[in-house]
């Protein structure tokens, strides 16, 4: 699990309430990922003096073309920084130079690594909001991550009506308006993380999936698609003033989820092993 480096508490061990303990730390020189772990990397997309020109040289041809088409300077910078960071991070797991990593979109549009012979079955997913990006990495299991800015979404009731299950809508209806608006985002990011993990993307078929809206819920087991095998969803909480380091935190004003599938060699069995998260800061290389 790569628990190298200074730490007062073990990274990934659950607390007494079963919540994953993970503190954003500088990654050790050698990051090791086993089938029990999921690694989450925090990427600052607005680093001081980002060397965009040299970063762009690490990108693949498709990525360079896409970056050129982005008309907003900020959006282009974020794209270049996040995709370069993604390559540099994945390079540490694959033992391949960052600029030689290839990934392509699968049939449903999810980026998947072009695996070299003998390479580990590394899977990943990226999400971003504002200047923060999160990259989730797992071995031999599907992973999805979704990060959202906590903000008013004026159409939330219509969206919930079309995409959420009857019981989720029931729970939302029972909450006062302001709480319901945040609960909507919590539900959305949970479902979106699961949808991204499965590679399907959110669709109205997902009205068959119910996720918990509880604020204090420990990681909960969710079905990856109506009828499919189960996985697990871990909540990313907005940091509190008290710096609750027992939870995976994101900056104030955001929330999110990671969803991890079961290990692929046991597809029909509900895995007893709960993925333990490690949270790493992406250094400014």
């Amino acid at each position, binding site marked *: 699990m790569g628990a190298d480096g200074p730490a007062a508490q073990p990274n990934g061990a659950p607390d007494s309430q079963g919540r994953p303990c993970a503190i954003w730390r500088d990654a050790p020189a050698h990051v090791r990922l086993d089938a029990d772990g999921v690694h989450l990397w925090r990427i600052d997309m607005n680093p001081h003096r980002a060397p965009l020109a040299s970063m762009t040289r690490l990108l693949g041809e498709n990525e360079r073309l*896409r970056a050129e*088409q*982005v*008309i*907003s300077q900020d959006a282009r910078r*974020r794209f270049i920084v996040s995709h370069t960071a993604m390559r540099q991070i994945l390079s540490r797991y694959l033992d391949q130079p960052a600029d030689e990593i290839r990934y392509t979109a699968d049939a449903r549009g999810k980026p998947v690594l072009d695996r070299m012979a003998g390479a580990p079955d590394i899977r990943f997913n990226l999400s971003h*909001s504002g200047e923060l990006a999160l990259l989730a990495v797992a071995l031999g299991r599907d992973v999805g991550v979704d990060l959202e800015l906590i903000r008013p979404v*004026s*159409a939330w009731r*219509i969206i919930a009506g079309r995409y959420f299950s009857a019981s989720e809508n029931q729970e939302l209806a029972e909450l006062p308006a302001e709480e319901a608006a945040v609960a909507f985002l919590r539900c959305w990011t949970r479902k979106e993380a699961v949808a991204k993990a499965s590679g399907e993307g959110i669709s109205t078929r997902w009205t068959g999936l119910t996720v918990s809206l509880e604020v204090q819920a420990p990681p909960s087991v969710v079905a990856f698609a109506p009828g499919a095998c189960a996985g697990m969803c871990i909540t990313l909480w907005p940091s509190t003033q008290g710096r609750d380091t027992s939870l995976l935190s994101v900056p104030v004003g955001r929330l999110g989820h990671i969803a991890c599938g079961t290990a692929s060699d046991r597809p029909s069995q509900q895995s007893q092993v709960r993925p333990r998260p490690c949270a790493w800061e992406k250094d400014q290389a």
Partner: protein
Amino acid sequence: MATVQETVLEFVRSEVIADRRIAYDTSLYSLGANSLEMVAVKTRLEKHYGIRIPDEVATREAFESVDSISRLLARLGVR
């Protein structure tokens, strides 16, 4: 009365980004639009025109730009 493109642009500006530089053929994803924002645009269009946009046609490509969304709506009978 607003054209379909004007209506789509209005919802995009309201839900995604109120950037004056959005042209009808601008890639919305290249502006940083995420899935929640695109779903918000989609559901507001459904409500506005009283239609359902089926999942099979609500693809990433279909929602690439104001123009592609307008073409999708035209195929669904919206004028």
